[in-house]
């Protein structure tokens, strides 16, 4: 009974705390501008199914895809086990799904294989980060915390899987000793008996200890998510659902600009009263739209974007991953300010300038390699373009060469200084 009450308390705290932090994240995302992306629902569901659920874009790197799939499948399927643990915990039962009979054996057996595969994958991931030191996992934005975050996630997963297997192993030994009812098939954990104590009392303690460690570990992990890059396990789904469906190279036409342009070209045009009167482009996170902010929370910092960025490859400051991480960091900061100092507090800082420098945004070739590389369709380019829009239309801070280009287009209708009258010269008997 005491155990049940303790479990209930832990369960309620875990859920309540997660709910509180998830709500805060949702509030932060809603600080962004709203954007309509609920068209083509069929296509969006398909996209989510293919890219997030089916992990289709992971296959570009087949080994990483396979290892990641182990962890992903492990995460999803072992959740059935978690359901049993939660019910057992609340009701004080032991392995309540036992009535499933041979199917239960199959379930437990497959959980064990998955747990083993998860361990293999997680050790490979740790080796890539700590021993092989893959280039993709370093870079200016990969400071102490992002690196620690990555290691934390992997270590927590190791602990959870070991707890699960040790729990099963001691359970099996207790079954063999006649202390627990016969249940389950333990294809992996049966080989762990060598490291278990022999006395029944010690085994019961170990089994219970690992049971608690496993479930409390999961509760803790759940509450670690809101502070971690690991949030992608949830947000990858909405991010792919809301991803841009148009061709990658297509940029949105700003409606606010459209009204002004129409008014300029046609003096009798009266802009609609509902027109967006905010500034042009983005200076800070609240100038971005909600899906860009959702993207920032979803980014799991894998670095595939930065790895293929032509600017980054050739040593420029720009890193698309940093764009996403800076956006999240700034949004978190704004959120904390709201919590501690109120909605109207202005800390005088902004995403452009304090987090992302002009040098970074101007190095982008808009080639979309980063968007293509992202396994969950995050769009760093749209943020770069919005920051450029602010720099140009609100601050008039483009390089001189770009200002000359603008002037040429305005005056001659071409980005270079050529006369419009010469446009057809190529057709006039030019020697080859």
């Amino acid at each position, binding site marked *: 009974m005491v155990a049940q009450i303790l479990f209930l308390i832990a369960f309620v705290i875990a859920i309540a705390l997660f709910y509180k932090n998830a709500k805060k994240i949702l509030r932060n995302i809603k600080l962004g501008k709203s954007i309509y992306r609920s068209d083509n629902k069929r296509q969006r569901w398909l996209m989510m199914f293919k890219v997030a659920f089916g992990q289709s874009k992971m296959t570009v790197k087949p080994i990483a895809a396979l290892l990641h799939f182990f962890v992903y499948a492990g995460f999803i399927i072992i959740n059935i086990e978690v359901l049993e643990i939660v019910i057992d915990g609340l009701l004080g039962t032991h392995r309540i799904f036992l009535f499933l009979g041979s199917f239960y054996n199959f379930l437990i057996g497959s959980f064990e294989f998955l747990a083993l595969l998860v361990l293999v994958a997680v050790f490979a991931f740790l080796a890539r980060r700590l021993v092989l030191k893959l280039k993709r996992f370093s870079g200016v934005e990969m400071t102490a915390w992002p690196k620690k975050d990555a290691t934390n996630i992997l270590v927590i997963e190791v602990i959870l899987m070991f707890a699960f297997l040790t729990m099963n192993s001691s359970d099996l030994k207790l079954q063999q000793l006649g202390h627990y009812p016969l249940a389950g098939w333990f294809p992996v954990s049966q080989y762990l008996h060598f490291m278990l104590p022999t006395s029944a009392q010690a085994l019961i303690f170990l089994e219970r200890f690992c049971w608690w460690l496993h479930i409390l570990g999961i509760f803790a992990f759940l509450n670690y998510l809101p502070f971690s890059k690991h949030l992608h396990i949830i947000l990858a789904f909405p991010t792919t659902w809301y991803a841009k469906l148009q*061709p990658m190279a297509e940029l949105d036409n700003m409606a606010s*600009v459209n009204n002004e342009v129409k008014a300029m070209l046609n003096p009798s045009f009266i802009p609609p009263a509902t027109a967006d009167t905010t500034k042009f482009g983005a200076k800070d996170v609240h100038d971005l739209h909600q899906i860009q902010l959702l993207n920032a929370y979803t980014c799991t910092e894998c670095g595939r974007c930065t790895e293929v960025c032509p600017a980054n490859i*050739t040593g420029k400051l720009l890193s698309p991953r940093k764009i996403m991480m800076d956006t999240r960091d700034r949004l978190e900061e704004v959120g904390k300010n709201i919590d501690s100092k109120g909605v109207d507090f202005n800390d005088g800082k902004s995403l452009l300038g304090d987090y992302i420098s002009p040098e970074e945004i101007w190095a982008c*070739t808009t080639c979309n390699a980063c968007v293509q590389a992202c396994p969950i369709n995050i769009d760093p380019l749209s943020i770069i373009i919005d920051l450029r829009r602010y720099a140009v239309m609100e601050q008039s801070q483009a390089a001189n*060469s770009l200002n000359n*280009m603008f002037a040429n287009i305005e005056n001659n209708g071409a980005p270079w200084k050529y006369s419009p009258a010469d446009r057809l010269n190529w057709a006039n008997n030019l020697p080859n």
Partner: protein
Amino acid sequence: MSNFDIKVPTMAEMMAKGESPEILFWVGCAGSYDERAQRVTQAFAKILTHVGIKYAVLGTEESCTGDPAKRAGNEFLFQMQAMVAIETLNSYQVKKIVTACPHCFNTIKNEYPQLGGNYEVIHHTQLIANLIADGKLKTENNETFKGKRITFHDPCYLGRGNNVYEAPRLALEALDADLVEMKRCKQNGLCCGAGGAQMFKEPEKGIKDINIERIDDVKESKAAIVAVGCPFCMTMMSDGVKQLENNANTTVLDIAEITAMANNL
């Protein structure tokens, strides 16, 4: 090749004669003014004339689509350009547009419809691939490219940006050449370094220029000809090739030029 001695019809002239073309050839600023790109424009005009497609250009009525302004953040200038261009195109009741510039292609195809410009837009490599498939373009001259090692550099705004990967390759497959892919190609193609208005500014500080990074891929492919489909890629790749040790052995040609040469045009 001979001098360019084709009469290029303009929309205004056609209109005056009470005719309308099948397709408008949107030349683009680079194709109009850049000396190297002008040769691509001429090659493509020769192809259009050769196959007997009734086409026209806007000539002096054409203006920048606004792409570089938009990519550089100047949405005002972009929309001003776009609205004027759409007005011109609509006044001629243009239905179909072909262009040799992937940036113009993307802007007119994807960004003009919302502003009132709805046209069927194709890239010149798509038109060439169709003409080859329809048997209207044959490879008359097999000798020029026979056995030559050719690689295609995907323009970002055509490939990744608009999912056109096959058309330019189909155009090259019509030749009796040795086609090779660079290690970074198609969806993983590396940018030449010119997109996003980089063409019009100095690059930011770094360890090397992007076109030099790309030339390493060309070198590795051992291609004698780098085929391109974009005037900006043409500039960047041509500059990059000059850095190669045996640069005389590597030529950068547009798909239109290659097709024109293969057909003795």
